């Protein structure tokens, strides 16, 4: 099915098509993906039963005159993370845990807040209603203190119950945007068509609820920054490179944006590329899409897209394109530390080309934003750089 046929001729996408074929072959060799892309929602009754089990255990503990405690997998320790090329970062099966005790001055408050949010989840699931993390925070902002505390507890509960957050009837407000050749129907029946629009569409808050996803995109381009995304929109990139999909998480992606990218890959196996700044922060964002994050490693199967490829801006591009030095920025101490940290991560070992690019950056001690390409021309990015990269396979 064709969408707004304004893009290049079919031969433009030959390399992309071959790339997709190789990805599919690789997938078949690996035994394919779990059905539904690894997404499995727990039913409402399952969630209710598991919460009741928790309460029951607490009461049993109290009846034995023992102070109850939660045992939660430690999501903040690298010791509990393993790397699999096909999945990315995920939690080990026997990981270290943290105890949240009810009889300790330091943890009693958190113990109570976990129970509080569990009881709220219980009510949401029972009544089949939904709330965002922000809604939960504002039910008693003084009690919770700040949003981060609520977010972390919700993630802890999700990890503890081994169900995705969606199953807890807790949504998060998406900050990501989509544009391009894509249409779908949201859970409430709303039809969404991202094609041919001057403005982008917000990533829906209920990715699992989307149905009737339709696209014939040749590639999905993940753009790190909103500014770059808007620039490409303004340059009509999606139509010029049609059929394609553009997504941005506006920096570090939220869960819904990651879920959407995962859903697109799992459903269509469309090649996914990233366009990030040539700096450690951009590389780290790219790694989140590709391999996942430590804090959400317990849900890696639902979130990671190991097939992601680095399209640009590569550190080697800076030299190749003779970007002048005054368009470059020296790496800060923090950048250096982050770069060193990324280089030590397990997934960099199996990405020699990525490692090489990072070493170029480390050696030059310079970084660059995508906007550095405007030195060449204001529309160099959308008119020359990206089309050439996509046409001739300039990704790693």
């Amino acid at each position, binding site marked *: 099915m064709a969408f707004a046929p304004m893009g290049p001729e079919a031969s433009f996408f030959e390399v992309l098509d071959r790339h997709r074929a190789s990805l599919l072959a690789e997938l078949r060799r690996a035994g394919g993906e779990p059905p539904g892309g690894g997404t499995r929602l727990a039913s409402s009754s399952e969630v209710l039963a598991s919460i009741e089990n928790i309460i029951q255990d607490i009461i049993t503990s109290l009846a034995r005159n023992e102070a109850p405690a939660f045992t939660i997998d430690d999501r903040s320790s690298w010791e509990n993370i393993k790397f699999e090329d096909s999945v990315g970062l995920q939690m080990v099966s*026997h990981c270290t845990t943290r105890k*949240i005790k*009810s009889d300790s001055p330091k943890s009693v408050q958190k113990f*109570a807040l976990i129970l*509080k949010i569990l009881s709220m989840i219980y009510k949401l699931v029972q009544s089949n209603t939904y709330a965002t993390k922000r809604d939960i925070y504002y039910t008693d902002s003084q009690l919770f203190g700040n949003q981060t505390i609520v977010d972390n507890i919700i993630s802890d509960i999700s990890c*503890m119950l081994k169900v995705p957050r969606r199953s807890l009837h807790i949504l998060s407000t998406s900050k990501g945007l989509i544009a391009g050749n894509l249409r779908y129907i949201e859970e409430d029946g709303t039809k969404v068509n991202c094609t041919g629009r001057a403005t982008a569409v917000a990533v829906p808050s209920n990715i699992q609820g989307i149905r009737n996803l339709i696209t014939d995109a040749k590639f999905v381009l993940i753009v790190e920054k909103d500014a770059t995304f808007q620039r490409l929109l303004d340059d009509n990139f999606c139509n010029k490179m049609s059929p394609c999909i553009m997504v941005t998480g506006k920096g570090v992606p939220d869960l819904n944006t990651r879920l959407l990218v995962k859903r697109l890959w799992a459903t269509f196996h469309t090649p996914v590329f990233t366009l990030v700044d040539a700096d450690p922060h951009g590389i780290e964002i790219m790694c989140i899409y590709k391999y996942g994050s430590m804090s959400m490693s317990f849900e890696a199967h639902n979130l990671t897209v190991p097939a992601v490829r680095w399209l640009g801006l590569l550190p080697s591009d800076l030299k190749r394109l003779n970007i002048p030095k005054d368009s470059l920025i020296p790496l800060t101490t923090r950048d250096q530390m982050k770069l060193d940290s990324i280089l030590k991560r397990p997934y960099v070992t199996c990405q020699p080309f990525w490692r090489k690019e990072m070493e170029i950056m480390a050696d030059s001690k310079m970084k660059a934003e995508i906007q550095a390409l405007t030195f060449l021309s204001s529309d160099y990015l959308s008119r020359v750089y990206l089309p050439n990269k996509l046409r001739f396979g300039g990704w790693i």
Partner: protein
Amino acid sequence: MEGTAVAVFEILRYLIIHWRCETGISRGALLEGQLVISIEALHSKHEANTLHCVTTIASVGSFYGGLVLKKFIKEIQSILPGFSAKLSWTLEEGSYSQDMSVVTPFQIIFEIDENPRTLMTDCLVIKHFLRKITMVHPKIRFNFSLKVNGILSKEFFGIENEPTLNLSNGIALVINSQHYVSRPKFGTTESCCSRIHPVLGHPITLSIPDDVVGMDLLGELILTPAAALCPTPKVFSSQLNRISSVSIFLYGPLGLPLILSSREQPVTPVFKDTSYFIDLEKYCLHMVPNLDLNLDRGVHTLLTTHLSAILTESHSVVQDSIQFTVDQVLEQHHQAAKAHQKLQASLTVAVNSIMSVVTGSTCSSFRTMCLQALQAADTQEFGTKLHKVFHEITQHRFLHHCSCEVKQQLTPEKKDSAQSTEDARENSNPVLLAETSGPAENKRPMRGRLRQGEKTRTLRYAGAPSPSEAAPRRPEPTAACLTPSGGEARATHGTAPAPGVSPGSGLEDALWLQEVSNLSEWLSPSPEP
């Protein structure tokens, strides 16, 4: 001027000063001995409504150093010029020897006529004075007896093996709280232990006003404040919202109580209004100082006479030092009270959350199990019992453990040694046991367990914590470097000896300081992952 009390004061003061100075007792050592003070009163044959009182002050057993009678009488008469002519002195030399080093018992007797009311007041004053002496001279014991028309009453001051906190220069502070409160202000069950836990402030040098210098008051005066709550409360609850009184005990350089005379020296704001030195309002405390001048009277020394002026001259440094010391005491409890409030609030949230699930559940087996576990007939009773059991289980972990209890609990008992050790460590440092990593083998695999109807335990409970999480912290003593003061007021040329803290009951101090050094960590935000 009342006779008996003042005479007893001055004689005891003389004896103690003589005792200390003449026998060359070393610093850090305590004066040791026993004195008997007995007053026998009979109706006077010459005056109506008057008692003829014979007061005897005698040593019991050994008494080091010999008193020279003439020198003693001369000096006492110079101290008490206002005594009436009815006073007479007798010094029975006993086995008195010219050799000062020979153990010498002594006995001093004087007689005076007083009306009964005055005698009773004098007795109270004397006992008050004796109590104050024993606070800093724990090895001096007094037997005080009063016999009025054949009716005898006795009281003993000073107990053997009193727990003390050593200051310096031989001054030790008894820390048995009975010395400081005659009746417990709180129920005994609410008191942590029978001891106070003084916090010592930094010693400060006092400036002597120009108009005081040259009046035989020279040298260096150093003030070392110490503050404590008495009795040490067990539970930091609303008790800290109310402090019934502030008692101020003043001692001179040799540990003799400084007694103020309301007659000879008007009460200045320095002693009348504690806010002159201590800001208690920041703890939302308002109290009345307990400076019972009716029991503090009579004897005045050069130091006492000018004490107000000296303290006023050094008001800011005195205030800073005392405030710092008081802050150390009150802030700890204030923060502990806040931690306690935090606990109560958290338990309420926990209980309400559990109740919400239990009452909202449509699973009858779940509801039944919950009620049965706590032996509750209905959800209302369940809620009450839930709150009670939570409270009971968590309360003891949040009780303030003083160093006395910690010392006992650090001794392993005859049960599972690993468990007991970990429990003891928990009791001594409960703050260390939150959110620690447990061994992997404690975790059951969780995947694939969410099937309907399956009873899945998703909790593990705090058993014996791993050694890493229960390591006690090193004590960080906050005691100031205590510089002993220069000699008594009459010793006009005093120089401060080398500073140092006497060991004495150092273990208790270290354990106490260890306990409160952790207090700030109790209240810091939990680290987020």
